[in-house]
């Protein structure tokens, strides 16, 4: 306890020292810019641009007329057909194989084979999809599953990241992530390997 107190004191001291050093010298600021929309990328076909981008970063894209077609497509993928533990947060597209709400500790998710997540919107310029942490019982599901699928509406596409952040507005949940393609590494001699620590592959289903 005494140690704690001492530490707190020193933190306050350092806080003051740092802020003092920063405040003693006034530097004039150029002010903050606002991006001029007319200067920014605009795609004639944002959906096409998104699909091309996502494929270029290693994602697979499927167009659906109806969300439940996702199950048929996934069943043709061996590693899905043989998967034992599937967590789906998009029940209208894919059924879960067990009840994830029973799980309290994210460590117990280590054996999850597939996570099917819901995307809020997609970004044309870089193939990213925004996932809101609030839609997930455990954020670890996105990273711990061997394979990831994201279901997102193809009507929800923004052109670039400025629009993306404007759309999020003020972040309301403790976690949110842009996912663009499967996890990857090029740390061994610049050879690209898909499936680093997160998902080994990414399937994206674009619903009407």
């Amino acid at each position, binding site marked *: 306890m005494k140690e*704690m107190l001492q*530490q707190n004191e*020193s*933190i*306050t001291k*350092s806080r003051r*020292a*740092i*802020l003092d*050093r*920063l*405040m003693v*010298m006034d530097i*004039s*600021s*150029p002010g*903050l810019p606002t*991006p001029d929309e007319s*200067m920014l*990328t605009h795609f004639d076909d944002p959906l096409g641009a998104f699909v091309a981008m996502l494929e*270029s*970063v290693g994602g697979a894209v499927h167009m659906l007329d109806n969300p439940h077609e996702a199950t048929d497509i996934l069943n043709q993928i061996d590693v899905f057909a043989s998967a034992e533990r599937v967590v789906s947060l998009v029940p209208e597209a894919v059924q879960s194989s067990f009840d994830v709400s029973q799980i309290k500790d*994210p460590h117990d998710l280590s054996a999850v084979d597939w996570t099917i997540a819901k995307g809020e919107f997609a970004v044309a*310029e*870089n*193939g*990213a999809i925004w996932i809101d942490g609030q839609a997930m019982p455990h*954020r670890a599901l*996105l*990273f*711990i599953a061997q394979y990831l699928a994201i279901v997102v509406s193809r009507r929800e596409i923004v052109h*670039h*990241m400025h*629009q993306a*952040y*404007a759309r999020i507005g*003020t*972040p309301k949940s*403790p*976690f*949110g*992530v*842009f*996912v*663009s393609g*499967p*996890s*990857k*590494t*090029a*740390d*061994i*001699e*610049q*050879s690209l*390997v898909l*499936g*680093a*620590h*997160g998902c080994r592959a990414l399937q994206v289903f674009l619903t009407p």
Partner: protein
Amino acid sequence: MSVTLPIIDHPTAAKPFVTNGDRSPWHDKALWFVRGKRDKQASTVGEWEYLRSMASQIKTATIANLGNYLVEFERNATALGATVHWAADAEEHNQIVLQILRDHDTKRIVKSKSMLTEECGLNHFLEDNGVDVVDTDLGERIVQLRDETPSHIVLPAIHLKKEEVGETFHEHLGTDKGAADPKYLAEAARGHLRSKFLAGEVGITGVNFGIAETGGFVVCTNEGNADLGASLPRVHIACMGIEKLIPRFQDLGVFTRLLARSATGQPITAYTSHFHGPRDRNSELHIVLVDNGRSKLRHNSEFREALHCIRCGACMNTCPVYRRSGGHSYQATIPGPIGSVLSPTRDSIKHKSLPYACSLCGSCTDVCPVKIPLHHQLLAWRKEIGKQGLLSYDKRISMKAASLLFRNAKVFSLAGWLGRTSLRFLPHWATHHRFNTWTIARELPEPPKESFRHWYAKNRK
């Protein structure tokens, strides 16, 4: 870092790398490939230059009002339930982290890439205090297992060949002897690190951008390691240099478009994660704000802009010296052009040779996404080092001589004549000997028959 190293100048430190077979050209090629990918990305974004000037303006405004933005950040982060700590220097940063670990009786931590914790020497400090630290970024894990330091801020193991990684993994992870297939090795690392992730009691991450307006922060990775490390354990510690701040949430639009394109030539990293407060009521989020010389650097108008750096590594990938000499030759946490600007601000004596590890080609300045005038700053450092009297004897004497020469027309033309004449007669050994380092890998030019002055006088009409 707290360990004091002897002063080793850059050419000496680069020697083992440069003379190691084809290592240098191989390294050069690997980085040039990354630079090429960056160029391709930059050229497909029509507003690239517009983004760079906005990024530069945002960072200038941030550093100008850094104190206020930090207070705003602290207030908002605290309101979200995070605990904000302030560390004046590396030592205090390490103490704060250790204290949090002790408060939770933690012996095992998983850590994602953070140049700040490298700068603070956190790994060794924690290990000395009985904590098992696992770097989870693949490149960082490789260098950690080899007891080395990262040689690049984005590509920590870029100096290693796959056979060397194979050997390291054979020794530490039990992969097949002689196996060097990157896919096989990465798979082995995935398995090995999975178990570490599951056993980690606290996750430590760096921060790419802290947002004053919201009190949140963003971490960008390709591997998903920061996310796994921060979403499994109950306690997340994020270590952040105070210059990592940006004022508004919307500013992320500018920086997320620039960062990965500049760094690895990707349109964006695979994961761009936004953390706003702890995960839930049972979790803790600690944010450690670290100064460690940054507020002092802000006072220096010549080098202040170096605080704009978003650590993309583009200046290294393009630097003709870095590409050939390798990151370890800089003997500093951050190598390359930006490292050569930052390191002397910490210790100008120890790092006095770094501003000379530069051809002043200016390529770093051209690629820097936040428009730091890197080569101007390197030149400014040379002046500063001259002023501080830190130049080596041979540089000092030759500069003095050059200055005398250029100031006196008679002496200048005499020296010209002497040079032209003697070059014609001097035997090779007289110019190429061990005292003349300049001629180690160079031949002297053919002497011209007459001076320009002479030629001009003859041909003037």
